[in-house]
C-alpha cells in the first residue's frame, strides 16, 4: 500500500515527476540554458535571489532539499553566496559535523567580515568543541563589530562558567538579563548560583524568572525544590503543584510533590502521582524508593520490599535505599537481612547516626548485645540529639538491667526533646519514655515539665510491670524507630531533583566507593570495629546530597 502510494504519483506522468519537490537536484543540468533569457546582454541574477527559499527549507528541517539548493546556488555564484554557506554550516552543525561547520562559518567570515553573526556562529561552534577561550575571543570580537546583544552576553557567561570564572560569568549573565530576559539565561544563572553555593540568590532569581514566565514548568520545579531544601514546605508544594498543572507528567515535580504528600501521610495520592512518573521514568531509583516507602506507610511490606529491591538494583550505591531496606527488614523481623543491608549502607555512609541505631536494633535482636551497645554508642556520638537513638538505647540498657546508665540516657533524651508545638513526635515514643521513667524512677520532674510544655495528657501510669513493658516496646521500638527515621530517609530521597540541579555535589560521591572498599577490608570481621574504626567524614547533612544518584 505504502509502496504504491509513493510510486504512483511519480510514474504516472513524467511531468509530475519533475514538479516534485524532491527532484530539485536532478533538474540542475537541464535548467542551465533556461535560467535567463540570454539575448545579447543577459540580465544578471543577484546572488541572494534564492536565500529566502533556502531559509524556508532550513527552518522546516528539510535538509536534503536545502543542501541541493545550496549546491545549486554556490555553483551559480561560484561560492560567493554568503547565506548559502552559512546555512550549509548550520545544517552541518545540526547534523553533528562541528569541525567542518566551523570551517564553513570561518569561510563566511572571510566573505563578509562585517557581519557579527558569522563570528557568533564560529564562537558557538568553538563552545561545542570545548574551546571556550577561543570562543570568548570570538564573542568579544563579534561584540566589537555589532551590538553586544543578549546572545553574546549569555554565551560569554557560558564560556566563563566553563572556565570556572564564576564572577565574570555572573556578570555576563546579569548583563544578558538586563538586555533581554530569556528563560535560558535565568536557569543558567540560577545553576551558577547553586554551583557557587548561594541558594538564596538562586531563589530570588528564580522567583523573578517565574514572575516573568509563570508557566515554565522547569523554573517552577527548580524553585519549588529550592524551597523544599529550605524546609519551606508550603511554598514548595504550591510551586510544584503549579508546575504539575501545566505539565502533569513532569517527573521532577511529581517526585518532589509526591515526597511532600508522603510526608503528610497522603500515601494514596502520592502513589497515583508516582504512577505517572513510573510510566515516564521507569528506571529511576529514587522513584522506586519513594513508591516503596508509600507502601511501607500503607503497611504493605512485601510490595515495599520488592520496590526497594528494584531501587537497589537500579542504584546499588545509594545508602538511603539500603537504609530503607534495613528498616523494612527490621519491621519484618528479619534481623539477619536487616543487619546485612544496614552494614552495607554503613560502608557507603559511615557517618550517619540513625544507621547505627538501626544496626544496633538489629544486633540486639540477633543477641549481639556487646556489639549492639557499641553501635548505640557510635550512634549517640554521631548524632547526640536524635530521640530515636536515645530512647532505643535506653530501652536496650534497661533490658540489660543497667538502670543507672539507662537513667542517664533517658535524661539526655528528655533534655533534647523539643518543647511543644513543632514537635510532631509520635506518641508511642513519648509513652515509652514515660513508662521508662516510671520504671527507672528518674527524671519525673523533667517529664512533668515536658508534659506541661507539650500539653499532652499522661494517659496511664506505668501500670504494667516495668520489665515486661520495656521488653514489649523494645521490639515495637524497632518499628517505631523505623517509622521515625523513615522520615529523613524519605526526605533525602525525594530530594534527588534538587541535587540534580546542583551538579556541584556530584564530585562528592566518589568517597563513597573508597570508603566502601575500606570497609570491606577492615572493619567487618568484628562487629565491634564499628565504634573504633569509623572515621567520621565531614560532609554536609544528608538532605540534599544523596540526591545525585537519582539522575
Amino acid at each position: 500500500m505504502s509502496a504504491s502510494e509513493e510510486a504512483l504519483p511519480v510514474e504516472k506522468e513524467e511531468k509530475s515527476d519533475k514538479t516534485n519537490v524532491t527532484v530539485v537536484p536532478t533538474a540542475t543540468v537541464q535548467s542551465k540554458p533556461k535560467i535567463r533569457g540570454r539575448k545579447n546582454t543577459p540580465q544578471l541574477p543577484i546572488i541572494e535571489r534564492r536565500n529566502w527559499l533556502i531559509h524556508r527549507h532550513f527552518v522546516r528541517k528539510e535538509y536534503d532539499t536545502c543542501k541541493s539548493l545550496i549546491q545549486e546556488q554556490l555553483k551559480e555564484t561560484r561560492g560567493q553566496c554568503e547565506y548559502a554557506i552559512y546555512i550549509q554550516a548550520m545544517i552541518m552543525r545540526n547534523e553533528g559535523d562541528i569541525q567542518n561547520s566551523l570551517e564553513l562559518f570561518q569561510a563566511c567570515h572571510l566573505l563578509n567580515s562585517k557581519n557579527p553573526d558569522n563570528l557568533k556562529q564560529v564562537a558557538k561552534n568553538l563552545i561545542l568543541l570545548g574551546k571556550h577561550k577561543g570562543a570568548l575571543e570570538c564573542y568579544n570580537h563579534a561584540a566589537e563589530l555589532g551590538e553586544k546583544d543578549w546572545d553574546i552576553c549569555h554565551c560569554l557567561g557560558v564560556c566563563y562558567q566553563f572556565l570556572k570564572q564564576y564572577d565574570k560569568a555572573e556578570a555576563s549573565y546579569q548583563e544578558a538579563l538586563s538586555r533581554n530576559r530569556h528563560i535560558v539565561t535565568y536557569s543558567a544563572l540560577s545553576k551558577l548560583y547553586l554551583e557557587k553555593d548561594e541558594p538564596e540568590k538562586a531563589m530570588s532569581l528564580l522567583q523573578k524568572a517565574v514572575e516573568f514566565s509563570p508557566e515554565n514548568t522547569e523554573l517552577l520545579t527548580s524553585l519549588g525544590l529550592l524551597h523544599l531544601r529550605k524546609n519551606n514546605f508550603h511554598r514548595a508544594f504550591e510551586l510544584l503543584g503549579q508546575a504539575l498543572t501545566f505539565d502533569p507528567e513532569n517527573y521532577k515535580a511529581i517526585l518532589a510533590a509526591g515526597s511532600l504528600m508522603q510526608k503528610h501521610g497522603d500515601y494514596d495520592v502520592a502513589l497515583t502521582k508516582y504512577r505517572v512518573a513510573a510510566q515516564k521514568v521507569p528506571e529511576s531509583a529514587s522513584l522506586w524508593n519513594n513508591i516503596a516507602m508509600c507502601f511501607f506507610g500503607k503497611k504493605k511490606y512485601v510490595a515495599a520490599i520488592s520496590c526497594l529491591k528494584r531501587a537497589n538494583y537500579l542504584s546499588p550505591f545509594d545508602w538511603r535505599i539500603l537504609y530503607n531496606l534495613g528498616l523494612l527488614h527490621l519491621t519484618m523481623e528479619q534481623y539477619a537481612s536487616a543487619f546485612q543491608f544496614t552494614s552495607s549502607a554503613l560502608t557507603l555512609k559511615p557517618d550517619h547516626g540513625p544507621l547505627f541505631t538501626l544496626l544496633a536494633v538489629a544486633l540486639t535482636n540477633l543477641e549481639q548485645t556487646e556489639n549492639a551497645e557499641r553501635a548505640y554508642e557510635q550512634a549517640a556520638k554521631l548524632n547526640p540529639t536524635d530521640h530515636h537513638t536515645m530512647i532505643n538505647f535506653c530501652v536496650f540498657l534497661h533490658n540489660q538491667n543497667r538502670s543507672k546508665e539507662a537513667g542517664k540516657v533517658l535524661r539526655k533524651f528528655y533534655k533534647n526533646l523539643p518543647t511543644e508545638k513543632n514537635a510532631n513526635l509520635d506518641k508511642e515514643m513519648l509513652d515509652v519514655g514515660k513508662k521508662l521513667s516510671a520504671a527507672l524512677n528518674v527524671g519525673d520532674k523533667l517529664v512533668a515539665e515536658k508534659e506541661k510544655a507539650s500539653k499532652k495528657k499522661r494517659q496511664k501510669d506505668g501500670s504494667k510491670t516495668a520489665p515486661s513493658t520495656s521488653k514489649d516496646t523494645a521490639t515495637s521500638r524497632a518499628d517505631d524507630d523505623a517509622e521515625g527515621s523513615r522520615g529523613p530517609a524519605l526526605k533525602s530521597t525525594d530530594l534527588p531533583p534538587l541535587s540534580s540541579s546542583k551538579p556541584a555535589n556530584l564530585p562528592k560521591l566518589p568517597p563513597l566507593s573508597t570508603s566502601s572498599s575500606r570497609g570491606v577490608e577492615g572493619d567487618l570481621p568484628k562487629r565491634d570495629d564499628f565504634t573504633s574504626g569509623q572515621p567520621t567524614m565531614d560532609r554536609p547533612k544528608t538532605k540534599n546530597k544523596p540526591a545525585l544518584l537519582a539522575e
Partner: protein
Amino acid sequence: MVAIYITLLQVFILSSIYIKMTSEDQDEKEKHSNWLNAHYDPVAGFYTFSTCITFADLNGDGDHKLVIADLGTGLYNMTIKVLKGTSIIQENTLLDLPTGVTSVYMDLAEPRTPGVVVASGSGLFVYKSMRPYYKYNLPLLPVLPEEAVLWDQANNENLDPLTLAEALDGLKKSHPTSSFTARTSHFLQIENDADARQFVDDHKHKPLKRETVITCVTTIKKSMAEDDAISCIVVGTEHKQVYIIDSEAFTPLQDYEIASVPVIVNVSGLFDVDFRMFAACRDGCVYVLKKDSLQSRVCIELDSSIVGMERIHKHLIFALADKTFSCYTTRGKQIWNLQLPADVLCTAVMDHRAKGFKAVLVGLDNSEVRVYREKNLVDIIKLNDRPQALCFGRYGREDSTLVAVLASGALQVMILKRTAEYADHSSHKGPPMSQKMKLNIPKKTQLFVDQTVRERENGTKMFQNFQHDLQLMRLSVAQTYLKGLQSSMTPLSDDPSMPLKLSATVRGIGPVFQMLLTIENTAAISLNDPKLATGLIVLFKYSDTIYSIKPLVLELPALAPEISYKFAVRIHCIASDRPAQDTITALIVKRGTKKPLVTANISMPVSEGVIVV
C-alpha cells in the same frame, strides 16, 4: 511504444485502485472526524508554500477560486494556477520563483474583482481577471558611489578589467557583500581576462543597478476594514527593508529599515488610521514597525528560527524550529508555551467566522495538522504525507475549507463539518492516561514467604553462621595471599630491590604456539640510580609429555625501569594424538638464588591436532 502504453495503462489502473483504497480508509476516519474529505489528488504535483496559496473571488461572483503559485521544480516550470472545484481552470507561466501570492482589491470598480499579486524576484506581478495587468519593480537600491565611479571609468575604457577587478576586490574588504550590485559580484567571479573584457563590453550600455529580492508579501487595508476594501501591498526584502506600496498607483508609500531579513510580516490596523507591522526575521527576532516612526524596535527575541507566525487578535503565535509553539503579547511577554511532538512545517490561521473564533493550524513533520484554539489542542487532522502548505478560507461557496499541499505534491481539500465543535477548552483534560496504569510490582511468591519465615525463626543462627563463614573465608584468603607472597607465586614482585611485573600472552592455534612474555621493571625512575635489574633468567615449568619449549632458559638483559621488554618463546605441543591442554609456569629467577622472584601461570589453549598428510 506499445510497452509504454501498457505501463501507462497499468499505472492508471493501479492509481484508480489506490484512490479507491484511500477513500475507504478515509471513510473510517471520517466517522469521528470534524472534516469531510472533499478532494484528493495525489498527482497534482505542486511545490509551494503557505504564502503562495490564497483564495480569491476572481470574478466577483461569490465563487471563490484557489490561487496557487507553484515553484515548479524550483528552477523552472514556475506557474500560477487557478483552481475551481477540482480542476485547474487557468495557468500562467512565471519567470522567476514566486515568493508569495496575495489578492488585493485595487479599485472601486463594480463588480468587485480583486487583482492577484505575485511577488517574484524583485518585482510584483499583478494579474487582473487572471490576465497580466501590471509589473511593478521595487525601487532600486543606492549603488555605492565608489563602485559606480569604478564602473563608470571602466565603461569609458579608462580602466582595464584587471585593475577594475582589483579595485572592486579592495572595495569588498570594507563593505558587506550585500551592498554591491549583481554586476560587480558576477564580474568578480570571472577568472580569465578575455571573458572579463567581454563582460564589461556587454554591460557597458546598461545602467548600473542594485536590485533586491522580495522575501515576503502581505497586504494592509488602506482606509476601511471591509473585506473588499482597497488594500496596500506590504513587501519585505532581502536587504532588510519593508515597503508599503499603494496598489492603485503602485508607488511606495512608506519604507522601513530593519535589523535583519524579514521572513514573515504580519499587519494589523489600517494604513490611513494607524497600524502596526510585526516582522519576523531570520535572526529569530520580531520587530515592530509603526505608522508614526520609521524606526523599528525589537519586540520579541525567540530562541530558535521562526517557522510560522500568526496573529490572533492581540496575540502573536509562533511555531519555532525547535518544536516549540508559543504565544506572546504584542509587547513581547510570553503567555504560554507548548512543546510540539514533531518539527513544524507550516502554519495557517483558521478564521471560523460562522462560529466566531480563530484557531491556528500547525502542519507537523509527522503528517498531522493540529488545530489549536488558544493553547488548547482541539483537533488533529491526519494526512497521507507531510503537509507542505496549508490554507484555510472560503473555496467555491464553502466557507470553511482547508487546502493542504503535501510534500509528495498531492493536493487535499477538506471541508469543516457544520457539526464540528471546537470547544474553548482542550479535548484532552484531566489526569494523564498513565495515572490509571498499574504499577509493575512483582507478586509475593511462596519462596519469599518461606524464606521470611525461616529467617524469622532462625535469624540469630543464620547471622552467626554467616559471620563465622565470613571470617573463615577471610582467613583463608589471607592465608593464600600470604603463601603466594612468600613463595613468589604471583606475577608481580614487590621486592623493593627488584620490583618486576610479568605477563604472558599466547598466540596461535597449535600445535605450535608463540608465547609472548612481557617483563617490566616497575621501579620508579630516578636520576642518580639507574635501578637496573640484572642477572635474571626465565625458566619454564611444564609437562614434557605435552609440550616442548624453545629456548628452555631465557637469559634476560639488564632491565631498565619503565620499559616493557617483550620476549617470544616457541612452544610445540607434542601430544598430537589427543587435544592437549595444560598449564605452563614461567618463573623469573635471579642467578644464585633459589627462590623465584616472580611466577606466572599460563593456561594454554587447546591445541589443534597435527594434520598428517
